[in-house]
């Protein structure tokens, strides 16, 4: 009880800070310095129609690289930890039902396709590598639900993940040699704004991210699924 009271008091204090922030907050009327720059220069400099993507992949590409690394780390650790646990014993599969099995068989290609679409078009439309990767992973999840005994090749997943990572870093480095700096997308021609093959290396990077994220999520899901139920 005392613990709850203290928690309440503490959260009240934190909440008061939040409240001050909330009530003191007035939305900007015009774009601030940074946002303004992006609005004005993205199209011309990077050739990306989706400004958020330009920021994510290029301007703040280092963040994104870190982000990808976070997932990579998480996947590695989860894989390592769960791999150390006892392997799943063969057991009689729970019947999953016709609807799910059929639905999965039917939907999986479409989900994968959607995922690819989302990350390939990341520089043009809402979405991108992370979203696409997540979509692909959701397909994998569906597959796992439909067939819990399904075994994924960890080697393959890991290879996709790593190759994508290494290429990502290499493209980033190529920016140092061929363009203005690390992760500069202008190592490839910018093309026309709005085209699929535009915005330099952004689509390429975002695709790699999509593959990598998809592989990582898949790897986490597969690891979790393969774990013995405790």
């Amino acid at each position, binding site marked *: 009880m005392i613990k709850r009271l203290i928690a309440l008091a503490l959260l009240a204090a934190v909440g008061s800070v939040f409240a001050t922030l909330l009530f003191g907050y007035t939305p900007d009327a015009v774009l601030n310095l940074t946002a303004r720059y992006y609005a004005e220069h993205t199209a011309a400099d990077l050739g990306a129609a989706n400004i958020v993507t330009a920021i994510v992949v290029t301007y703040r590409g*280092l963040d994104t690289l870190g982000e990808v*690394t976070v997932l990579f780390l998480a996947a590695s650790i989860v894989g390592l930890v769960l791999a150390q646990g006892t392997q799943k014993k063969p057991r009689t599969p729970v019947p999953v039902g016709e609807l799910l099995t059929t639905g999965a068989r039917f939907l999986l290609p479409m989900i994968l396709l959607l995922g690819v679409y989302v990350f390939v078009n990341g520089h043009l439309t809402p979405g991108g590598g992370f979203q696409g990767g997540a979509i692909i992973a959701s397909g994998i999840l569906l597959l796992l639900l439909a067939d819990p005994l399904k075994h994924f090749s960890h080697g393959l997943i890991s290879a996709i993940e790593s190759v994508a990572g*290494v290429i990502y870093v290499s493209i980033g480095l190529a920016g140092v040699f061929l363009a203005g700096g690390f992760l500069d997308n202008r190592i490839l021609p910018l093309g026309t704004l709005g085209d699929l093959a535009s915005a330099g290396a952004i689509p390429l990077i975002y695709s790699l991210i999509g593959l990598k994220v998809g592989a990582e999520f898949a790897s986490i899901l597969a690891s979790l699924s393969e774990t013995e139920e405790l």
Partner: protein
Amino acid sequence: MSALYIIAVGLGSAFLLGLLNERQRGLAYMITLAALTIMSAISASWLLIFAATGAHPIDILTAGTQPPFAINLRMGLVESALTLLINLTGLLAAIHMGDSLLAKGRRAMAVLVIAIMALCGIVLTRDIFNLFVFFELIVIATGGLVLLSDADDNGRAVSAGFKYLIVSQFISILLLIGIIFAYHATGTLNIDGMAEIVGSGIKPELATAFSLAFFLMFIAVVAELKPFPANGWALDIYESAHPGFSAIFSAATGSAALFAVDKLLLIGGADWLPVATGIGIVTFVGANLLALPQTNDRRLLGYSSIAQTGLVLTILGQQDILGEHTLFIAGGLLFAHAVAKAGLYWLSDFVATRSLTGWAALQERPLLVFAFVTFAAMLAGLPPFPGFYAKWELVHILAAEGRLALLALILFGALVEAGYLFRWFGYLIKREPDQEVSCNTVQIIPVFAAVLAGWALGFVWGELSGHSNLLLVLPLLFALAFLLLEWAPAWFKNTLAIGGMVTFFLQTYAEYDPLRLIFAVIFMIGGAVTLLASYHAHGRRIGFYPAAMLMFAGMILLIRATDTFGFFASWELLTVGSYFLILRGKHSEPHALSYIIFSLGGAFLILTAFALAAAAVPPAPTFAIASLGELVQPVAPWVFLLLAVGFMTKTAAIGVHIWLPGAHAEAETDVSPMVSGILLKAGLYGLFVLLMTMGKQSLYGVELTYVMLWIGAITALLGNLMAIFQEDAKRLLAYSSIGQMGYAMFGLALMNHLGWLLALMFVINHYIYKSMLFLSVGGVAKRTGTREMYKMGGLITLMPLSFIATLIGIIAVSGVPPLSGFGGRWIFYNAILTADSRLPMVLIFLAGPIAFLYLFRLIHTIFLGQLKDEHRRIKEAPFWIILPQMIYVALLMVVAVVPGMVLRHVDAYISRFFPEGALNWEGMSITSQFGYWNPVAIMIIVGVIFMLLFSWLLFVNRKAQKVKQFNIVFSAERPFRPETTHFAWNFFAPYRKAMGFLVQPFVTRFWETVTDLLHTAADITRRLYNGNGQIYAFHFLVFVVAVFAMKMGI
């Protein structure tokens, strides 16, 4: 190579590792090492460039766009040094954890590489959100490494890691909220951009929001430093994780997080510096206090890490006054901490049990002991390591700016830290090893890399310090050279040591004025004579010579020092050297500890005094000791007071004397004369210098020399009084030293010509007779195997030479004519005749006869009375222990007959300070304005009477035979057991009945109470850390709210 490659190489190799087959672990490990090596090489190359050219930091752009629109990195001197530290720690940790990594496989290696990369990222990035990303990488990597490194496989590390993650979640929530609102307020995420906007004035309507946002960011990043008391989770990790990783967590993560805090302070500006200071100092003191009761080595190191981080945070908070010195100070402390802590964690892997006492296993490996010593000295800020120079600068600047409370807290914390470190070292050296050291060659590499780095850093900081580089000073180098000679036999090293000291004396004696010359002779020639006794030791005697020579080097440098820096550095050197020497005694562990704590406490007072003095005089790179005399009110008396107390801890004045008896008594046979006969004089030298430069000072109307007079008198009385009740012969001599030092202090404090001459007389005499007595008693103890006097008795016929030395010694100490002690007494009476204050003299009068009591006890219970059965076959003490005693006997005779040989020069020298009252040395007689004294005549008269009677008695009793031991009768019985016949135990029972109330151990109890209080306070506070991760989250929030309340409340 651009600094970006550090990140690229780290990430690239991590991804590459994923490509490998799970079975290619060897290859994976090679890639890991290669990546870390390349990363280190890049940092190192930049460090060289910046250090050599002093170039400005270089901004590295990403995305080909200028900041603040894209993330940029910055590589400068600090960044290159920090990344080098991080990368090297990572590399060495990878080497250290080799087995473990190979067992876990490539993914674990990838996690390690990414962790190191992310730490570099934290250092390099100039973008606040990017900082967050790197922090999260660290969180996950840390979590992962902890999870993987569950050393004992009992799940403790796992639960620790989970607690860490819980708190990290709270931290990242606050950090993100802070970042987004800071972005909203400033329109940028770039750290420099934000700082610029804040500097040029933020819009008023956004000011509140910004300051709240900044608070959230700041507190979140500070929380990464594991501030006290919101750090339970970190301690659990330190305790349970693989030590290879804990090294990274302590050395690298801590350093990176500190740099992140520094970046935030750049944004926050001067307003936030006090907050950083406050958090830092509370952490430093609190964590050090809590480290006191720890018994788990890794947890203790964890507390120490947190404390050191807190100290650096304090320094970052003092940037406003430290200015350009911040780098030097913070860097010195940080690097010393990082290198030492990493080294200690790696060392801890060689010890099987997790108790501090388990480290005794290292005893068998001198090299590992040396490594431990290096690390402990670095942490404690002892010369010649960087922490020492940093501490010196820091204290000076704090004193100059008048931040004395902070200064006191820092020094207090440092003392506590030194306390537990040296206690630990005592365990290591003295406890019985109960297990083997388990280490392979590869695992030793990182430890010794850290040792090398420590010494190299010491050299670099010495070069940068603007003072003389201690690692280039000849006597110190000579002492350190003995480390390399440890393989040689003891006799060889002994010869070298004696030769070195004598040669150095011959080379330099012309440089000293008469006063210093006396000390120089005692330190160098006296040291050489005492070292003769060391020839008795066989084997290699590992550890003795570096320690002894360190002490002698310190003393030599002390008299050669002209500025306060040199003086203080040599003071610390001699303290440390003597500590190691004292610790060598069989049962000296607790005494050596109290010695080092009192000495360091005293040293801190001296340091503070020097800093206050330097602050009061126009700034100069060095502060000459002679300038102490230029100080005026109100600072002068305080400087005087601090210095006097500091020096008095070394001379063991009453109140701070409790370390001496044990330390001197438990030391080895040839060490006791060194630390008693020679080392104590360093304290007297300090007092001499102090009084010569500063003269009389009064504080609140109280004349300080007058207080000193009282202290000297009380010390003389109580020291002597305590000596008579000792059963242990060496303790008796040790207490006697306390009394003798009291006399000398009393003489100095008289502040007249003869008083000083008296003190000098005591310096010389005490050196000779106390060295002699300690050697003699030590030789006896060596042969009989005990120091309890009542267990001895009747040794006169078996050990005649030792007896003669003791006899001459006690006659000299007691001041009975015709030996040299009388000269001291005569000068003493003449001196007090001119003194103004008379009351303290009463105590001195009382002290005089009491000396007889303990001296008689010494000679009676050891050499006279009844010989014990078990001692009947005892031989005389070894030749090499007897030889110096005989030299001392000769010296005593010379000094007794021609005291003027030495003293007249000093007398003339003292006339510079006190022209009044000089002695007249004409002819054979020594004349003062009150009386006269003719040593030669006394010697002849006493000698003639004595010889006349003696030869008559010899003549008439020429047929007398020596009778058997029990040929005595009392109470109508013939005794048959020496034990019941030898009257020795509780020798002065009536005296104890009458005067015992004066020697109740009040002072000991006082200090025991102090330490007990510290321990109790720490134990109560410890209960905060109840191990529950959720409670730790509470701690964190309480911490946040408390800091908020304080910051916003002010």
